[in-house]
């Protein structure tokens, strides 16, 4: 197989590709972004490039005018490399990565967030082994017998026949773009090709045909798109190996901390566009970073699987979320069909697929479905409760017979936003805290043992529990005015110094203020009250529950006992409570790796009954009663009684 060099201007980037590769794919392989809304179908005409030097084979297209043709314009997706090339990308075809003005964004994010750091953690993968390995996109290497006078079925049928010899695939479909290239490609690659098969609903699509054997290189990403953080995981679809995980802040936070304010922002001029770009930019950055670190060509990333709350999925797909907020709170879609990733602006192989975990309702999204799947609640005989502690706390109660869920708006405090020194569970985040009773000396440990840069959710839980225990705060969260070098009156009232300037990595003291404690108190009250109302609604109490799964972006550590001490979790036997990490991401990964899991997820999403907390007037009372550490009803926290 011949290889050629393609040079792109004005990026001045060079890549080496096999003969017959499209210019679009070549560009992506070296990180040059070309517009492509149709995902290489040759339909949208956005990927026009100017050929400066070299030979190509191009499908004629109505998208190129005669005038343009005279100037050597080609559609990058319909043009294959046949020699070394030099290609100019005109401004109109460049992807405008600056849609979301950097300045505007930096200003709004100032002091709120730090850039992401890599973080290795292993969320639960309880059921992964149970599902048959059948990724969303599979690659098969085929050596086709060349046609003879005796065997002269068409090229496409020849391809189907070869595929069916390996896999039993009933309904197969192929896009026109692939059919157009098929004849030439099969012959120039001497009938040795790799096809990528994608699952799209009940049918299988030939997503991609590549010359030679690339079946070794098939990668996908699982995403958890949260209101505050976005986590992505790169996976080798062939070996199921996790190659890396990255967590970034959702840049949409610049437009509002919760889904409601973002839905409102989406109605402003360009609002939807900006929100959409904020999420895909972060996702593309994660994809870019993970693939580069692992030396993977973006063309070999064939699919992406996203779990997120309903609003996040709407914004990812640039679907107007307005109606989620309006009575009777109906989303545009809970079950989104598999689409081309490029249609949503996700930069992987331009023909690669994007699928979303089905959601339940406007406020119970696919992230929860994925969580239920990964914890296996739908198969449990015993009564289980899943609490996903996020900006929108989602809670599901049930077992194999029934599933009911609700969503409680908790705010982003446990994800490190809206608190003075909060940060995500990333390098340098204080995640474990102990306070000495006599002189309040703080002993802490940070993620990756780096110098502290802030406090993450699990750190705050420990901190509050310890401060209560050492009587630094009272049960309402007020700091007690005691003489100690760690206690002082700051700009925002009383504060407690967790780490002094000399110990930190940020050249400032890391403190927790009374306002922080108040925000954390409200967040924990919202989640506890939601869980408690849901359990009560089904005529159970917490002691009836046999297994409680706690999910959330807490990194790899959460002190269950401390979470109970502050009243975030119900006071039940500790052994019944399991911390499962990011169960949404784990579920998304299962689904990415197995179509069986996807079918299971659809079943779960249909099975979950949505319980609207706002129609239950008990919720507000319950919430108010929980605004205390641990709770105003001490009978519910028997182990906390003195």
């Amino acid at each position: 197989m011949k290889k050629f060099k393609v040079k792109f201007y004005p990026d001045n980037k060079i890549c080496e590709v096999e003969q017959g590769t499209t210019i679009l794919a070549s560009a992506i392989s070296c990180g040059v972004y070309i517009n492509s809304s149709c995902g290489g179908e040759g339909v949208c005409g956005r990927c026009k490039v100017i050929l400066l030097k070299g030979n190509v084979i191009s499908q004629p297209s109505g998208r190129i005018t005669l005038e343009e043709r005279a100037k050597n314009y080609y559609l990058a997706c319909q043009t294959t490399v046949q020699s070394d090339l030099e290609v100019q990308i005109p401004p109109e075809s460049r992807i405008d990565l600056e849609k979301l003005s950097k300045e505007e964004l930096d200003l709004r994010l100032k002091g709120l967030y730090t850039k992401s750091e890599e973080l290795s953690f292993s969320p639960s993968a309880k059921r992964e082994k149970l599902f048959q390995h059948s990724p969303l996109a599979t690659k098969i290497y085929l050596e086709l017998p060349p046609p003879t006078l005796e065997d002269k079925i068409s090229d496409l049928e020849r391809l189907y026949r070869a595929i069916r010899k390996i896999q039993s695939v009933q309904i197969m479909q192929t896009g026109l773009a692939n059919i157009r290239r098929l004849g030439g490609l099969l012959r120039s690659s001497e009938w040795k090709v790799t096809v990528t098969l994608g699952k799209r609903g009940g049918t299988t699509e030939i997503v991609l045909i590549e010359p030679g054997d690339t079946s070794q290189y098939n990668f996908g990403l699982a995403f958890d798109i949260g209101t505050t953080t976005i986590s992505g995981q790169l996976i080798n679809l062939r070996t199921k190996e996790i190659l890396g995980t990255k967590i970034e802040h959702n840049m949409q936070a610049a437009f509002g901390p919760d889904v409601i304010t973002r839905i409102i922002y989406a109605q402003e001029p360009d609002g939807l566009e900006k929100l959409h770009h904020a999420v895909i930019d972060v996702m593309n950055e994660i994809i870019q970073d993970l693939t580069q670190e692992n030396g993977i060509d973006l063309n070999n990333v064939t699919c992406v699987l996203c779990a997120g709350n309903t609003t996040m999925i709407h914004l990812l797909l640039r679907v107007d979320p307005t109606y989620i907020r309006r009575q009777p709170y109906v989303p545009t879609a809970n079950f989104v069909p598999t689409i081309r990733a490029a249609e949503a602006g996700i930069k992987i192989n331009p023909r690669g697929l994007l699928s979303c975990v089905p959601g339940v309702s406007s406020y119970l999204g696919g992230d929860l479905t994925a969580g239920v799947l990964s914890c296996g609640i739908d198969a449990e005989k015993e009564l289980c409760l899943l609490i996903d502690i996020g900006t929108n706390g989602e809670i599901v109660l049930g077992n194999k017979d029934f599933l009911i869920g609700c969503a409680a708006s908790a705010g982003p405090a446990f994800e490190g936003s809206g608190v003075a020194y909060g940060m995500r569970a990333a390098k340098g985040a204080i995640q474990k805290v102990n306070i000495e009773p006599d002189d309040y000396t703080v002993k802490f440990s940070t993620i990756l043992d780096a110098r502290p840069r802030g406090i993450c959710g699990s750190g705050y839980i420990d901190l509050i529990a310890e401060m209560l225990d050492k009587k630094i705060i009272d049960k309402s969260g007020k700091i007690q005015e005691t003489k100690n070098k760690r206690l002082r009156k700051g700009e925002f009232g009383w504060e407690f110094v967790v780490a002094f300037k000399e110990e930190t990595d940020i050249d400032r003291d890391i403190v927790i203020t009374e306002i922080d404690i108040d925000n954390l108190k409200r967040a924990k009250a919202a989640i506890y009250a939601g869980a408690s109302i849901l359990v009560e609604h089904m005529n159970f109490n917490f002691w009836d529950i046999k297994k409680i799964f706690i999910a959330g972006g807490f990194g790899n550590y959460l002190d269950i006992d401390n979470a109970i001490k502050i009243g975030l979790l119900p006071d039940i036997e500790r052994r019944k409570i399991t911390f499962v990490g990011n169960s949404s991401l784990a579920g998304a990964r299962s689904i990415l790796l197995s179509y069986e899991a996807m079918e299971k997820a659809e079943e779960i999403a249909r099975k979950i009954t949505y319980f609207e907390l706002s129609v239950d007037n008990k919720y507000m009372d319950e919430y108010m009663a929980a605004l205390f550490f641990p709770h105003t009803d001490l009978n519910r926290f028997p182990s906390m009684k003195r």
Partner: protein
Amino acid sequence: MAMELVKEKWLNAINKVTIGSTAEEGGSRTKVVTLGGEETLPFLHAEGALPYKPVIAYEVWDTPARDWPEGLSSVYGKVLNEPFAWAKICVEEYKAELLCVRLVGAHPDVENRSVEEEADFIEKIRKSCGVPLIVVGCGDTTKDNALLPVCSQVLKGEHCLIGSVTQDNYKTITASCLADGHNIIAESPIDVNIAKQLNILISDMGMPLERIVIDPTVGALGYGFEYAYSIMERSRLAALAGDKMLAMPFICFVGQESWRAKEARTAEDQHPEWGAVLERGIIWEAVTAAGFLQAGADILVMRHPKAVEIVQKNIEELMGK
């Protein structure tokens, strides 16, 4: 066939709180007042014991009560300028069972009296009358935190009811009352949860639950009466159903609220159809008080002797078995 009365079974009773202590008990009061102890909702004698009747406390100020309307101030006349004479009239003439002494003059915006002056005043009150005492600060947090601990010391052994503490300011005053053996008024802004939270916080400091009285913050008739009523009712229902952190008697500052009402103050020439202003004020205070009795009030702090007389009669009727 006679109709059978449906009776509710309650799990818990309201705490008994005793105010005042006699010479034998280490104080100097001529008698003590016990309240609370209800085993059921107000006046449902058939359902459970209601061992003590609600008590009315007369208000006495350390400084002339200048903003009292004519209809109210005229009954007291000149004694409004002489606190000790004022106290004496309440006890001797009006037979007050309890006195509620308000240290209004200590407020920085009123007379900004010093802590020493007030301590002296309190000591004189203690000596001049024998009824159990309620002592209420001036309402300025910083001042009260300096003032009330000193009053608490002066009154040590008298088993007074001292207040008020709030969720944001409870430590200093609670600590003194605890040390000097007084009861405490826990004030919450018409909110059951905060009332409960505050009780937990106070009891966390070691204050026995039997020494806490809840001030739920009330409004006069027509000025949030129903709101306060429903908060008291919810709180009482929770207490009787077993919530020990809400099982405290209530104190209601009825006088201060009702005499602020437009209906109690507006002159006759402005609203002739409203009737005589003198009667209006009395009726407003009496009706507000009678309403809160039904919500479970244990102490009513009142101002006009005529209104007190009406309510006293009402209490007797309601308590008569």
